[in-house]
């Protein structure tokens, strides 16, 4: 932090720094260094989640009454800055930043009691079952069905691109419960699925273009779930889905802080990479210009994130604003990863899956800082696709402008 900080905030910063230093072990830090996507290595990030929970710090943006920290925005930011500084992995968003807030907002007392503690503690991990093979951008056309049968629903259908479903023990799911009439958004319900080990659920990992399984296909065959798994009203799941998407798109974290960390890495690398003419890349005005442009994009993003953080979610302004954050943040990180591979050059072309695996003990070929750059570039092409593509976000913004 460059500008002066009040003594109180400085003490807070020191407290966070000390805690991380004393509690993040080498395995967790290695996972942080080897993270190449928005979804860090599962076992280690969950381990870190549980450690944070021990301190009461796993849900920094939740209200205090639900086990959140109750920190104001500056403290949230300081916490995230210190996390990035130390290099611990970013917590997985699906539980804490996505389904958690939806349960807090829409859940019955019983649902809150049942689900929030496991989310906070990092005992449960929830996968997001929205997309289907034929319902991607057009999410409302989803076909996965749930039919009532006595005091149960019976689910049949499939989901796809479900991130980390192969690690998850819980899933939030959009299903069609209503009949055919009306708008496609009607008749959708939002389910909280507690048991993914049901034999009727078949989870198959999909290998990504970076060579790693991250998303999954999920198939449901006659899966019986109790009626009270429905979050919000039956057939009105679309409202819940949209509320959750605002959290997903707006980010449950400070992207700006994370991206700054990436820029630092690139600057360090440029400082020790030759420019092919006998100088160093960091001294090259073309590099400097690109770097500063991106740093400014990140600063601007931070300003928008601050506005969004104090906005009531589910309001007419918050939807388009979350879309704006989605577009600007994801395009910023895409450009940052482009700069990264441009700086690293051909050494970033080596495929080093073993060296990237936490605990493998395999030494990277070439500069260790360069190890993750190509996987990050490749993986982050998804950033303008997931969570609703950037084309869809621009449609949403345009629609709100032209309304």
């Amino acid at each position, binding site marked *: 932090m460059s500008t002066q900080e009040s003594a109180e905030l400085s003490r807070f910063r020191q407290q966070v720094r000390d805690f991380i230093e004393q509690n993040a072990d080498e395995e967790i830090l290695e996972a942080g260094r080897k993270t190449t996507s928005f979804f860090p290595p599962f076992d280690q990030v969950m381990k870190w989640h549980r450690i944070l929970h021990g301190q009461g710090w796993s849900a920094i943006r939740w209200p205090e009454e639900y086990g959140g920290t109750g920190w104001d925005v500056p403290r949230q930011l300081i916490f995230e800055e210190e996390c990035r500084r130390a290099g611990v992995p970013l917590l997985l968003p699906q539980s804490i930043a996505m389904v958690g807030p939806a349960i807090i907002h829409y859940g019955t007392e019983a649902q809150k009691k049942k689900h929030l503690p496991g989310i906070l503690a990092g005992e449960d991990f929830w996968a997001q079952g929205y*997309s289907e093979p*034929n319902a*991607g*951008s*057009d999410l409302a*056309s989803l076909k996965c069905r749930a039919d009532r049968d006595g005091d149960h629903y019976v689910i049949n259908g499939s989901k*796809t*691109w479900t991130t980390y479903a192969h690690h998850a023990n819980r899933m939030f799911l959009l299903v069609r419960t209503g009949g055919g009439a009306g708008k496609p958004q009607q008749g959708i319900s939002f389910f909280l699925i507690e048991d993914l080990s049901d034999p009727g659920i078949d989870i198959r990992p*999909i*290998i*990504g*273009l*970076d*060579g790693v399984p991250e*998303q999954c296909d999920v198939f449901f065959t006659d899966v019986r779930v109790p009626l009270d798994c429905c979050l919000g009203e039956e057939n009105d799941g679309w409202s819940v889905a949209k509320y959750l998407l605002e959290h997903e798109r707006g980010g449950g974290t400070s992207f700006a802080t994370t991206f700054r960390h990436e820029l630092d890495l690139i600057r360090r690398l440029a400082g020790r*990479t*030759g*420019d*092919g*003419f*006998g100088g160093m890349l960091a001294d090259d005005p*073309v590099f400097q210009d690109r770097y500063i442009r991106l740093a400014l994009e990140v600063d601007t993003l931070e300003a928008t994130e601050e506005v969004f953080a104090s906005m009531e979610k589910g309001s007419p302004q918050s939807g388009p604003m979350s879309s704006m954050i989605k577009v600007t943040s994801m395009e910023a990180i895409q450009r940052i990863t*482009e700069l990264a*591979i*441009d700086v690293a*050059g*051909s*050494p*970033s*072309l*080596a*495929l*080093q899956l073993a060296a990237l695996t936490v605990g493998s003990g395999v030494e990277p*070929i*070439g500069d260790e800082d360069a190890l993750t750059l*190509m996987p990050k*570039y*490749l993986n982050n*092409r*998804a950033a*303008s*696709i*997931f969570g609703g*593509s950037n*084309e869809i976000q*621009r449609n949403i913004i345009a629609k709100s402008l032209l309304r």
Partner: protein
Amino acid sequence: MSTLNQETRSMLEDSVNRFVQGEYTFDDRKHNLKEHHGQSPDHWHTFAEMGWLSIPFPEEQGGLGGDITDTLGVMKVFGRGMVTEPYLSVITAARLLSPANYKGEVAELLDGILSGERQVVFASEEPGSRGNPLAVALKAEPDGTGYRLSGEKIAVMHSLTAGHVLVSARSAGGYTDEQGIDLFLLALDAPGVEVTGYPMMDGHQGANITFNGVSVSKTQQLTGAGGAAALILQASSESLLMLASEAVGIMETLVRKTVAYTRTRKQFGVALAEFQVLQHRMADMYIETTSLANLLAQTASRWLEAEAPQQAILASKLKARLGPAARYVGQQAVQLHGGIGMTDELDIGHYFKRLTSIELQLGNAEWHRKRLWREIAA
């Protein structure tokens, strides 16, 4: 323009098309990557038999008598098939052996290369040399009647199946000086040569090669002392030319496949191709691709009249233009496919990765723009 007659050229084009369509489907390629690290002895044998390895070599050396521009048709089709065999690497390296040095051991090696029995690759790039083939720090120190080589080469392509390597080394002059660079031919298993091979993210094979005081004799030196810059620039220019043709083959394929996909994939009750923002994106992909193809055709037509320094400039222009075009087309192809474009299962992501790799090899667009500026300013 081409040296070969029209008949030979269309024969070559037919044969390479038949090969890629018949034996190098996406599944075949996957199998080949798994079984042979993408460098299959059988395929290489086919390359020799079909005459592709002989294209840019003089007839008196057993070649077809063509020139480097005659390989561009092959490279374009290889782009479509994402062929990972060491064609570009071996051809551009072998051309350094011909014709000035066509005698004794070198002649034997070149014969072996044309018949598909042997392979040679060129180790040029070093840490921090970017695209500059004259940025040579690897040392050649006089030692008795020969030299000792020490230093590191990186991103050496396809050395996996090669027996020999050509290596640039500096015996005199400053870091990027033209004078003082030598080119040595040596066996990859020579004492003191340490090869760290790795697969690359595009399926090709790469290696970093360390030279730990490797002894070489004067007979292994391809030119007079310190005078290898011209040959080295030739290899670099010709590699860039061939890479550009491969890139065009890939980009044309991505445009075609993306257009086809958006016509069949439906969301919101209509084909994706109905959305104007996507139409414009595809129009831009087409514009980028066709512009690069046109620039390549023009470059090829001017190539043979150009002297080596002009060829280097033509090659830099091509690569500088290729970078942003390849990046745009590759990224948009993935984007317009949505989630499926991000998978290992579909070919789109693999084309994208190969394009990304081509962008970064032999100097990225930024480096080549700087080189062009230096040319203008000089």
